[in-house]
């Protein structure tokens, strides 16, 4: 039983989340809200202990981004109650904690705007109204919240334990369809599922969010996986990791995933990917022990020890067959302009940048930090290296170039972090390509020498490892995926393509891209999905982790058919394939 499962709001029902103050109820609630938004399900957030803008910034911290307007609305029952001025917002109706009627009226008015059913109502928390109205709140739970849930909505209501009479809390619990009790034991946060419409009673530990990107706790190098990777690497096997679909993916899909995630958090998401790609490469020494002895020997004797020297770096780049083999680009070391501790590498047909000519920014996210990591790993002395793109297809250059130097680069941050406008432009361009492909059958992307496919390894890097970097990045990919799915559908509809046709075209596109082997029946099934394969092969994550795929399918189904999808099986959770039910 994973935490993720109880943080998915059920379709309908009233869940009461109780626990002492500080047990993590609000954090839990925020996550449920984000999951709902990511699934394109509208949310009404009733806040009684913080103002709506405060909640919005907390949700942003955790990856809210810019959800579709109208998807999340607030009943601010805090500001007026305590007399705090808050700017008027179109998504917020004020109410007063003292008067339960004002809360029910505000909620009803929002419900009228959003539609009668399928809403998640998050109520954080009942404690304040209880302090004003006492037992009347139990009546409110029964006659308003429970009724709201019975109309086909989901309600998550929080209540502090120990702030009121036992019998009142008991009365509230008796009407709830589910009860979750949170507690702290020896510094650990625990959720006890006392009663739940979907989950049998259990006890789940809540992990604390990592403060920064930590590679080691979750990344794992399974020796057999590594051997498979090496088999591909050394022998060029085409289907070492995916027996059915093969190990190559159309570069369009990982790039769409990458820029959809970026759309959500163009600054921190970009820094995260840079950091991860660099750290991953810097782990080379660690990883090398999984390689066969011949390879280890080769590295030991023939690889340069001083990446700072021009001739050594030239060797590294020229021997680095990986880029060519994984089709991420054709590398060329620029000996003429490089000097000690300052290397210039040119790459032709970079998979990160292809199709995004002249977009007005540098784009490469994989190879530059990767080479910085390689330099860090190879060097005898412990030195940090960084790489910055100086020329890029995205800037209108015919190829990309980057500079690799030890230590910090002042402009690096500005270069890696993207402006929202740039990301929107890139996303727009990708959607244009995709619409052209889906509607008019125009080719997606095709590089003259390297073709359209890249190895899974490149796809993994382009998509990043959001699950390693905490909830925020999972949200980024889910929400970005949802946006892409929705936008594509909108365009298909505008082009006059009918519902079922639109969906089958998109499924066909996913198969064309070799995302996995996608079949649509009562459910959607993807065998060998590249996204969950990434988690399965390289991490210790053992829970559903098709963040982008789920978001994308959800956006598609909600825009085309007003339906939602929910991942019920996932390769990363140990299932033989990934599967989504359509609800």
């Amino acid at each position, binding site marked *: 039983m994973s935490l993720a499962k109880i943080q998915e709001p059920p379709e309908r029902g009233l869940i009461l989340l109780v626990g002492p103050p500080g047990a993590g109820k609000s954090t839990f609630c925020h996550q449920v809200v984000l999951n709902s938004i990511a699934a394109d399900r509208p949310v009404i957030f009733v806040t009684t202990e913080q103002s709506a803008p405060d909640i919005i910034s907390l949700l942003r911290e955790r990856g809210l981004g810019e959800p579709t307007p109208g998807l999340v609305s607030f009943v601010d029952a805090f500001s007026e109650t305590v007399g705090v001025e808050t700017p008027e917002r179109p998504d917020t109706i004020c109410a007063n904690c*003292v*008067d339960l*009627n*004002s809360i*029910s*009226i505000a909620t009803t008015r929002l419900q009228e705007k959003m539609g009668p059913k399928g809403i998640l109502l998050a109520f954080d928390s009942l404690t304040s109204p209880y302090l*004003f109205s006492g037992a*009347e709140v139990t009546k409110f739970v029964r*006659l308003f919240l429970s009724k709201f849930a019975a109309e086909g909505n989901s309600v998550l209501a929080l209540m502090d334990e120990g702030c009121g009479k036992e019998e009142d809390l008991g009365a509230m619990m008796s009407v709830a369809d589910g009860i979750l009790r949170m507690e702290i034991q020896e510094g650990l946060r625990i959720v006890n599922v006392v009663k739940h419409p979907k989950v049998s009673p259990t006890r789940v530990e809540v992990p604390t969010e990592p403060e920064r990107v930590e590679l080691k706790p979750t990344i794992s190098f399974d020796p057999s996986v590594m051997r498979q990777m090496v088999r591909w690497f050394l022998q060029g096997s085409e289907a070492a990791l995916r027996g059915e679909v093969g190990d190559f993916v159309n570069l369009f899909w990982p790039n769409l995933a990458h820029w959809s995630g970026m759309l959500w958090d163009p600054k921190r998401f970009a820094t995260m990917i840079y950091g991860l790609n660099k750290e991953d490469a810097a782990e080379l020494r660690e990883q090398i022990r999984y390689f066969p002895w011949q390879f280890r020997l080769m590295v030991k004797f023939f690889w340069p020890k001083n990446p700072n020297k021009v001739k050594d770096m030239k060797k590294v780049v020229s021997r680095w067959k990986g880029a060519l083999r994984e089709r991420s680009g054709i590398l060329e070391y620029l000996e003429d302009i490089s000097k000690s501790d300052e290397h210039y590498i040119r790459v032709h047909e970079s998979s990160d940048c292809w199709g995004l000519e002249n977009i007005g920014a540098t784009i490469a996210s994989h190879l530059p930090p990767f080479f910085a990591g390689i330099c860090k790993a190879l060097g005898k002395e412990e030195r940090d290296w960084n790489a910055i793109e100086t020329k890029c297809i995205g800037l209108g250059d015919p190829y990309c170039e980057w500079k690799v130097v030890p230590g910090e680069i002042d402009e690096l941050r500005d270069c890696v972090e993207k402006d929202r406008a740039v990301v929107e432009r890139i996303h727009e361009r990708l959607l244009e390509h995709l619409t052209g492909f889906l509607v008019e059958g125009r080719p997606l992307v095709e590089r003259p020498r390297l073709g359209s496919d890249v190895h899974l390894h490149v796809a993994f890097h382009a998509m990043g490892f959001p699950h390693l970097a905490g909830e925020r990045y999972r949200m980024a990919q889910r929400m970005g995926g949802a946006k892409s799915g929705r936008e594509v559908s909108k365009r298909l509809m505008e082009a006059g393509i009918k519902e079922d046709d639109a969906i089958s075209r998109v499924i066909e596109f996913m198969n064309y891209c070799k995302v996995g082997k996608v079949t649509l029946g009562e459910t959607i099934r993807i065998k060998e999905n590249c996204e969950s394969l990434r988690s399965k092969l390289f991490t210790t994550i053992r829970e559903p982790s098709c963040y982008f795929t789920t978001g994308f399918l959800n956006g598609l189904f909600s825009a085309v058919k007003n339906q939602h999808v929910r991942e019920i099986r996932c390769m990363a959770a140990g299932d033989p394939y990934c599967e989504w039910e359509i609800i």
Partner: protein
Amino acid sequence: MVDYVPTGIPGVDKILGGQGFPRGHSILICGGPGSGKTTFAIQFLFNGATEFGESGLYITLDEDPEDVKKNMSKFGWDLDKLEEKKKLAFINVSPVRVTPTEKAGLVQLGMKEFKLIKLLEAIRTGIGEIQAKRIVIDPITIFTLQYPDEVERIYAMRDLIADFRKTGCTNLLISELRGTGLEREHQFEEYLAQGVILLRTVMKEDKLSRMFQVEKMRGLEVDNQPRPYSITNSGIEVYPTLTVFK
């Protein structure tokens, strides 16, 4: 066959059995100060004129019609325009606030002459002018005060209602609510009118909470439960599915 007059006020028709007021009935709207009685009445006339093709007559016994119009402009209702198009007429029969230079209505009456017959005359003239189907008298309290004797008062009120019946117009009689609490004595108008709507306000801590209740509506299956309502920037809105919490 009974014909119904929809109010068009959000939530209200649903409470009135999904229909509206029975045509030709006199409905008493009782509410405390600031409860939105006038807003309710104007909204009834405005919706009648704009949505249901029924002209309306607003007879004020207390306030200057210009003040009423000014107050109502915040809801975005262009009453002047409706008046121009003869969809709406305001008649000032205020017994105390008549100034000689004012030309506020069709008929002006002085304090002493203000009796039932004059009021009826004013109403008939108004109906004739614009073919009114909906009438509001705001507030009826002033009219009843003209009759210090209780028996006379009841007769006058009964005659007024009987006369309204003859005109075929649906009318709202606005009255101050005596006693805002949940326990209160019934006012005699309530017995005479065919329908009674209560707009009540309850103070809790320093927060006002409003409830709408159809106390009586002859000839109609209605929801008699108190329901919360609010005065939004587009007028009165009643929430027929919500329960009132104390």
